[in-house]
Structure formats: structure tokens, C-alpha cells
């Protein structure tokens, strides 16, 4: 038995449609199952009950709105968190009941009391052939009347103008930001700049830094500079003291530290998070964002994770008053790699 699909009212057959029942050996579509009446369709009492339920739900919504007002007007904020929490709860639950009351009520009404007979509607062709023909003719007429095909001079100059005209719209964005220049290659650190505590900016003596301790360090004067955050984003340093025996400085870097005290850039060479987690027994530094791990005993070589370069070391020494100072700026750009870094 074949299902007579075309009888379903689709006008025209220019579009091939996937129709179960194309081949002979397929089941016939049995059509919509018979409608099964609901409780409310058969029992007037059930109908009445559903009606009352819907009304009750709408009443709950009213109560919800009142709860909102109660929270808004009768729970004054007094700088305590409990008060705010209570107000937030009342506003939220009030809104929730107000909305759910309406929503659930309407849906319950639709489900129990509105007709639930499924209705069939025919699909129409998205683009009937007649429309296509008409449209084609219109487009051709438009093209003809405009004369764009017959006048290549006009067409080509228009094309050229249209291609060029948007360029200013791109160029005008040039002033979004300055050019990088070599700003990424320098930080505030320089010869003699004292290492100070973050955030207070108080200087640090070498004797303050005991074995096992870690200081979060900013250059002296950072808190006073105009573009503080930009400078801080490059200059933050982590200062640690190890047993000098455990450090293995490479040739030329022996005196970058002071008696086991070493300073490394805190900005991850991966994508720039602060590498601030110092494990004082393993001497590993861990970045909390992407877990790059650096080994202090090997001049902060990467031993795990996505970073590819060691953290740059800040050469330090002690000044006459016993304070730690930088011997120079970092010897390489800090933070994530960039094309011009080289």
C-alpha cells in the first residue's frame, strides 16, 4: 500500500521531497491517532478544578509581587551583609513567584482548558516556479532600464569608487592606539632602583629576606607614576631567598643574585598571568592560570605547562644602606612573546 502524499496539498511538484513511502515496501502512514479526551473534557468537576488551579496560580503571582515590594521597601540596607542577603532573597523569590505564577498559570490553562486537537496545515513551496519566472523578468527589466550592462564605463568607474570608498572607514581607526615602539622591551627597573614591597612601596633590606620567604615586589616610586598599572604590568617581581648552594647560575649570571636572594619577573612568559605561586621546598614557581611551572634552581626553566621560555631574572645587588636594588633593567623583554621580541 502506498501512502498518497501528494494528496496532502502541496501545490506543485518541482521540488523533490524526501517522503517516506517512496518505495512500495513501506508502511502506510496511519494518520493522526484518534483524539483522547482529557479529564477536564469529560468531567465538569475536573474542569472547574483546573479553572480554580489557574486562578490560584495567578494569585500566587500577586503574592510574589507583594513579596518583592516588602523586600524593597521594608528591608532597609544597613551595611550588613545579612540585610542585603535577605533583601536579595525577597526580591528574587518575589519576582520568581510573580513570574512563575503567571507562566505556570497560563500554561496550565492552555493544557487543561484550551482545545488540544492537533491541527494539520500544508507546507507550501518555498519558491514556486511562477514566482521565479516573474522575479527573473523583473530583475532583467531593472538591469536593462538601468543600462548598467550597456555602459561599461559607468559600471567600471562605479566599481572602482565603491572599492576605494570604504578604505577611509578603516584608516580612521588608526588612532585607536599608539604604535608599540620599544615600550614592551623596557620596564621601570634601572640601576639602583630599590626593590619595594607590593603594594605599600616600602624598601626591602637583604636581611629582611629570610630563607624560605617570598616577597612580592614593585620598583620604588611605582605608586607615584602616572601610568602606574601599565608599568606595574611589566615590572612586578617575585623575590625569594634560597640556600645559595641550591642555585645554579649560568656563566655571566653569578652575581645577579645576592647571597641566595634572587628576583624573577612575575609575568608569565606564556600569556602574562602573574606567576605568583612559590613552593618554598621544591623551589618551583607555578602559574595559576595555565599551570606553567618554572624551576628556580635552573634559573626558572620551564619544567611543565604551556610556557616555552624561562622567566626573566632581574639582576639585583645591595646598596650602601643594606637595601636591595636592581643592578639594571631586565636583560630581555618580560611577559608573553610578541612578534618583534626576537
Amino acid at each position, binding site marked *: 500500500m502506498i501512502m498518497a502524499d501528494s494528496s496532502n496539498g502541496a501545490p506543485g511538484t518541482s521540488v523533490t521531497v524526501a517522503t517516506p513511502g517512496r518505495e512500495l515496501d513501506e508502511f502506510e502512514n496511519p494518520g493522526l491517532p484518534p483524539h483522547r479526551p482529557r479529564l477536564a473534557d469529560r468531567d465538569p468537576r475536573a474542569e472547574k478544578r483546573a479553572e480554580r488551579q489557574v486562578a490560584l496560580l495567578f494569585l500566587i503571582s500577586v503574592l510574589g509581587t507583594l513579596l518583592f515590594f516588602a523586600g524593597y521597601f521594608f528591608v532597609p540596607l544597613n551595611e550588613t551583609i545579612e540585610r542585603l542577603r535577605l533583601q536579595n532573597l525577597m526580591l528574587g523569590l518575589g519576582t520568581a513567584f510573580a513570574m512563575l505564577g503567571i507562566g505556570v498559570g497560563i500554561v496550565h490553562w492552555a493544557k487543561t482548558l484550551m482545545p488540544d486537537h492537533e491541527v494539520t496545515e500544508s507546507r507550501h513551496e518555498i519558491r514556486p516556479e511562477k514566482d521565479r519566472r516573474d522575479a527573473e523578468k523583473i530583475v532583467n527589466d531593472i538591469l536593462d532600464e538601468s543600462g548598467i550592462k550597456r555602459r561599461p564605463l559607468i559600471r567600471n568607474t562605479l566599481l572602482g569608487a565603491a572599492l576605494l570608498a570604504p578604505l577611509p572607514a578603516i584608516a580612521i581607526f588608526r588612532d585607536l592606539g599608539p604604535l608599540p615602539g620599544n615600550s614592551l622591551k623596557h620596564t621601570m627597573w634601572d640601576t639602583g632602583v630599590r626593590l619595594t614591597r607590593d603594594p605599600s612601596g616600602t624598601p626591602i633590606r637583604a636581611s629582611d629576606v629570610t630563607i624560605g620567604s617570598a616577597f612580592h615586589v614593585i620598583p620604588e616610586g611605582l605608586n607615584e607614576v602616572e601610568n602606574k598599572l601599565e608599568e606595574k604590568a611589566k615590572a612586578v617581581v617575585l623575590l625569594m631567598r634560597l640556600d645559595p648552594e641550591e642555585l645554579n647560575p649560568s656563566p655571566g649570571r653569578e652575581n645577579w643574585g645576592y647571597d641566595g636572594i634572587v628576583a624573577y619577573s612575575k609575568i608569565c612568559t606564556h600569556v602574562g598571568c602573574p606567576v605568583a605561586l612559590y613552593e618554598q621546598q621544591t623551589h618551583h614557581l607555578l602559574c595559576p592560570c595555565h599551570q606553567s611551572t618554572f624551576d628556580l634552581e635552573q634559573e626558572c626553566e620551564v619544567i611543565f605547562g604551556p610556557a616555552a*621560555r624561562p622567566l626573566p631574572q632581574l639582576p639585583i645587588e645591595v646598596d650602601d644602606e643594606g637595601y636591595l636594588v636592581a643592578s639594571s633593567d631586565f636583560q630581555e623583554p618580560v611577559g608573553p612573546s610578541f612578534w618583534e621580541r626576537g
Partner: protein
Amino acid sequence: MSSSTTTQTYVPKTRVGKVTDYVDSRVGGSGIVKEFGRKIFPDHWTFMFGEVALYTFVILLITGTFLTFFYDPSMAETHYNGSYLPLRGVEMSVAYASSLDISFDVRGGLFMRQLHHWAALLFAASVAVHMLRVFFTGAFRRPREFNWVVGCVLVILSLAAGFTGYSLPDDLLSGNGLRIIDGVMKAIPVVGTYLSFFLFGGEFPGTMIIGRLYVLHILLIPAVILLMIGIHLFMVVLHKHSQFPGPGRTNTNVVGYPVGPVYAAKAGGFFFIVFGILAAIAAAFTINPIWNYGPYDPSPVSAGTQPDWYIGWVDGALRLMPGTLGDNFDFEFMIPFPWGVNALSLNVLVPALVPAAIVFTLMFAWPWIEAWVTKDKREHHLLDRPRNAPARTGVGVAGIVFYCVLWAAASSDLIATHFLVSLNDVTYWLRALVFIGPVLAFMVTRRIALALQRKDREIALHGRETGRIVRLPHGEFIEVHEPVDDYKRYKLVSFDSPEVMVPKPDENGKISLLDKVHGRASRFFFEDRVAPVTPKELEASHNDHHGEIAGAKDRESIASH
């Protein structure tokens, strides 16, 4: 509703009628009512996710507008002087201070912030689930390919909306997120540094970025989303909604409820339900406690710094990529050029771009990829049940697993602390899983889909197992099967099951490379297939397994023994 059946001028009688007629005769409302008043929409719970997305978007517009009245996107420095004591006197940006004021000093501000953020998470989640529903049921097939593409654009826009909004409070968490974006941007060859300087208005973090993200977040992106939603819905009306196969449903009709009153009531009521659910969540569950994170400062960072779930996968990929292999090979290349050495950071570029490129390319191109494999040019208004397209379902689940592994990678530190395992081991496992997981997921899912198809076949042929064991007079035990009725059976048998297309040689006896590839793809998709039951088979099974098929008559005969 006022309507006129005669050509004479219609004169409304009631007051409502007069007002209605006044408006109608000026805007042509009758036509709209005629077109949409009784339009039919098929009903299925999986069809509601698009609505959830739409409604959460409306909630986002409402709550977002409220927030803009109090939020100040300035990165100027200030000292907080509001009600939250543990931050009083702390130096911060005006943007962060105003976000705190919304939370602590504007009545209902905290509720609106939480509602907005929870709605944003649900928006992205419902967009994703809606898209998965469309994918798994094959609703992207002709004629709906372009609407699928519009949907893909909407996915990207919702990610952009989410990310720009996440950054606005200018707290420590989102600031470190921006720092990561800056690091990723700088890794882009040639133009990366410039892009970063243009976006941030100079060196990171600068004083421009929050204001710029704000304009994107409240103006540009919502406007484009609205436009895309308009196109999306226009095409839904144009195509009419697709429907699941079943009794009475054909490729040329739509079976469901009319807009007025049932569908409008359900859909309208559902808006209030979604709003209510989100309000309840915002009432009782904290989201993005910016007061915990503190103001953005490039020095501190919090353990457990992650983006929201929809960006999490990119962060996870960044975590999984090793920077070095062994002792001597690292993924950052120093390329010598005549003008100097330039750095190429594949350890950043690959994870940031490759997974997204794969996922989005496959997503956008899938309707055409599948049409090429099946060579199916027909219109499809009847959906597939996911089990009836085992290969497609497998690919979809593989994608889900891929996403989940990457999101898990973004939470590797939380997995480590909560399951008491080593952070490094979690990373090693996930590195393997990101490759193996999707493959395994594909194979397992396809097997499950085929098994379900076989089960359907069994049920269509032999009916449902009742669990009732009966002993026949000659001593044999059988389980009584209850046959399914015609309506249920039709649901189980009405599907297409494409077969493998073997490439055919051309007149020279050669098979072109493209045809070979097509043959392979076709085999990959349809090698294992379960054909739908045919009436002949059903009849044959009735004859062959008499007794096992306990039709009504059989049962009677058993009972009478």
C-alpha cells in the same frame, strides 16, 4: 477581531471595536492576524530551547538596561567609599567601584546583576543546546542550511557578548582574563603587537579597554544579535517548523497547535517560566562575587582563575598545550629574517586558534558536508531521530566530548583539589583524552545508536516484552510479547536509512580522486546500517515465529489452552 465580509465600509459598534478598527485600518493588522493567528507550530519539548535562548536574551536586555543606569565604564582611579567594608578605602577603577555600588548600594542592584549574569550563562547554554538539537535531528538540511549558518553566527555573537560583559566589572578575575587575551593577541605573527596596542589604546591595561568593551557589549553586539534573531525567525516562518516523523506527520504538512490560543499561551507562559526560574536562581545563588576578587591590579591573581563556561574551552586548550617537548624542542620559534629575528609562539597560537578553527569550520560547513556525502538534494521537513543517523549522532557526541575535555582542562586545578589527584597528572590525562575521547565517543555513540535501532526493529516486528512467561502445552516456555499498535509502529519504521554509495568508474574505467574520497566518506557514514522494518518483513515474522508474536489472537489462544 474586527473583520468585514462585505465591500461596504465597515462600521464598528463597540468601543474596543472602534479602537481596533482605527489601528487596523492604518497598519493592516487583519492581514497579520490572518497570516499568523492560526499558524501551526509542532510541539515537542526539544523545540523549546530556541525559545529559552530568545527569552533569556529579552531578560538580558531588560536587566542590562537597568545596569547601564548605574554602571560607569571609566577606568579612572578612585577610592571606594561604599557600603562594603572589606574594600573601603581601596584604590580601584570607577568601573569596579560602580559595579560594587550596584551590588551593595542600589536596592535590587545585586539581584539585577545576578539575574543578568545567570541569564547570560543560560542564554549561552540554551543557544548551545538548541544548536545541538538542530544538529542531532538533522534540521539543518535543505531548505534550512542558511538558517543554520545564521545560528552559527549567533553562537559566535553570544560568546562575544558574554566575554565583553564578563570583563566590564574590571575586577581581578576579569582583568586577568583580559591579560590572557592580550597575551594571545601578542602571539599573532606580524600584527599581534599592533592589534593589542590598538585594542587597549596603548600598553596593557591602559585606560580605554573597559569603555570600548562596554560599547561593544551594550550597543554593537546586541544590535547585531537582534538583527540575526530577526533573520532567524523570519526564516523559521518562511520554512515553517520542522517536525518529528510520526503518524499523521508527513514531509508536506505541519501538525501541531495553532498560534491562537494554545501555542501563544504556552510560548507566552514559557517566557514567564524562564524568567521565574532565573529569578529564583538569582535570589538564592551567588554568581560572580566581584567583591571577593578585588579590583584589577596586574600583580595579584586568584587561584582558580577561569573564564565563564562558554569561553572555558579555549582556556583549557591553552592549559593543555605543552610549551616544550623533551629538553631540546620548544614551540616558540625564533625565525631569523634579513631585518632581524622574529618570535613565533606556536605554544600560544595553536591552542588558541586550532580547536576553535576546527569546531567552527565543521559547524558552518556541516550541512554541505553531509549533503555531499549523502548526495541528498531533497527537502527535509521531517526530522531524524538521532538514533536513525548513527554517524551524525556520533560526530555530534564526539564534538560534545571534545568540548567537555577542554572545559575540564580549564578546571584542571579544581579537579586536582576536589578529587585529590595531582594537577600534573590531570593535565597528562586530559592531553591524551582530548585526542582519544572524541574518537571513542564517536565509536561508542554510533554503536549505541545502532543498538537502539535494532531494539526499535525488534519492537516493530515482535512487540514489547511484557515480562510474562507462559508455558505452552508442549512444554516450551515463551515470553508474551505485546504487539505495538499501528501508530507506535509507524514511529519506529518511518525513517530513511541511506546505503553506502560505491564509486563508479567513468567511461575510461577510472575513478576520480574525489569520487574515491566520496566513497570512503559514504562508507564511513553508512557502512553499518539498520534498515527500517518493511510490511513484508512484519508479515513474514508473523508467520515464522508464530507463538512468539503474541498478537491478540495468539494471546487468546494461549489463554484458552
